[in-house]
């Protein structure tokens, strides 16, 4: 099962809230003239206005509480603020902050004198209550102590526990989301080489990195591709590095450049349907050439290359060399041939040489 696309969820959620708030505000604030619409609509509008007047203080207090929750989320998960807000536990944080602020306001309203100005009460509760539930009071402080033996009342303990739980759960949800982004990238950029090049580009393109930071990042990158690290792990690490450096926007840009959608790989044509004949890449042609026996590769090269220096290179490279595998002898010839003749011409020549069934 795929992890939910948190950025998309944020965009949709944010858009819906903006539309709902704008629509309700417009409906309540602009009364229809009598007779312009059905009477029941005018009645509903009057009731909605009365309800809004009643609920306005609660909504304002809830808004202030939620704003504090939003600030906490976006500062804790500063690399993925939108995604953190869109997670399930991010939503719980917002609703809990808003709900607690409303409850505090209701309690304050009951005990506050009736003459208390509503706006002052809203601001006092909306800002004071979040402060209160995050506060640790020190009643007695040891002289010169490290704070361990002070007499304290930690009113914020309960919220700290909830915050810690939320942080862990949001981090887990974001981990799945990051993995999904890396998988999308690896679906389109599968080789260590291109992932490494992309990571280098991401480091160099970052405008905010100082020269020292850039150098440190490049050195970190080298550790990622240490020869002891397996290619599979190197690929995943490079994917994560690119995500860390360029964020989800860069992943979307890169995946989009390779014609990628939300899925991890390009769609395959339905079975039986004639797939469009894609031109083979130069690397694919080189690999095919490197599979040929040395003699055949040399013969083919000599038939395609004309310049004497090219023929010399092929001839000298094909000489058996102690300590160098046959593949490492053939691959440079294959690259040389493709670079000088072109992948298309080589592909045609390969097709001519294939035995017909």
């Amino acid at each position, binding site marked *: 099962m795929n992890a939910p696309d948190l950025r998309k969820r944020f965009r949709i959620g944010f858009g819906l809230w903006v539309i709902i708030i704008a629509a309700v505000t417009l409906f309540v604030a602009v009364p229809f003239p009598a007779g312009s619409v059905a009477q029941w609509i005018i009645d509903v509008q009057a009731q909605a206005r009365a309800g809004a007047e009643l609920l306005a203080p609660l909504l304002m207090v809830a808004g202030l509480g939620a704003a504090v929750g939003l600030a906490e989320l976006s500062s804790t998960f500063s690399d993925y603020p939108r995604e953190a807000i869109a997670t399930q536990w991010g939503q719980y944080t917002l609703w809990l902050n808003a709900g607690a602020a409303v409850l505090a306001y209701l309690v304050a309203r009951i005990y506050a004198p009736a003459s208390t100005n509503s706006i002052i009460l809203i601001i006092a509760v909306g800002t004071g209550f979040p402060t209160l539930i995050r506060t640790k009071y020190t009643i007695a402080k040891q002289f010169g102590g490290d704070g361990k033996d002070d007499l304290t009342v930690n009113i914020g303990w309960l919220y700290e526990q909830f915050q810690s739980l939320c942080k862990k759960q949001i981090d887990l949800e974001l981990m799945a989301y990051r993995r999904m982004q890396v998988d999308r990238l690896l679906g389109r950029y599968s080789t*260590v080489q291109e992932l490494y090049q992309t990571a280098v580009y991401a480091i160099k393109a970052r405008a905010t990195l100082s020269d020292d930071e850039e150098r440190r990042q490049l050195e970190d990158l080298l550790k990622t591709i*240490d*020869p002891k690290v397996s290619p599979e792990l190197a690929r995943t690490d490079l994917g994560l590095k690119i995500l860390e450096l360029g964020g989800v926007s860069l992943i979307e840009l890169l995946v989009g450049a390779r014609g990628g959608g939300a899925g991890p790989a390009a769609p395959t044509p339905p079975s039986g349907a004639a797939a469009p004949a894609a031109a083979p890449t130069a690397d694919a042609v080189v690999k095919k050439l490197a599979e040929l026996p040395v003699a055949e590769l040399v013969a083919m090269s000599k038939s395609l290359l004309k310049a004497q220096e090219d023929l010399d290179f092929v001839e000298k490279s094909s000489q058996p*060399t102690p300590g*160098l595998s046959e593949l490492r002898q053939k*691959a*440079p010839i294959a*690259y040389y041939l493709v670079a000088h003749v072109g992948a298309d011409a080589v592909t045609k020549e390969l097709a001519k040489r294939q035995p017909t069934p």
Partner: protein
Amino acid sequence: MNTPESKDNLRRVLAWLDKIGAVSPSRLAAETQMLPQETWGLLNQLSEMGLVIIRDDPDSADGALVIPAPMSMKSLEEKLAGKKDDMLKQTRGE
């Protein structure tokens, strides 16, 4: 000991790597028109100097990938100059 010609070849290989980034050693050989054994020799030398990393790569035609270290060109010049100083010290018996 590095002859002036081999130093030039080291510089040439590294300059090329600096330009293109990570690449298959065989492609490097083809692009620089150096023979495979010569290219691998230079790359191994650069790897021992810590200026490039050579690692396995199943996607490469020769199964390997060579990656230049950051600031490798500058480091090469420093190392080559260091070797020259060492040789001078040895000649003087210091």
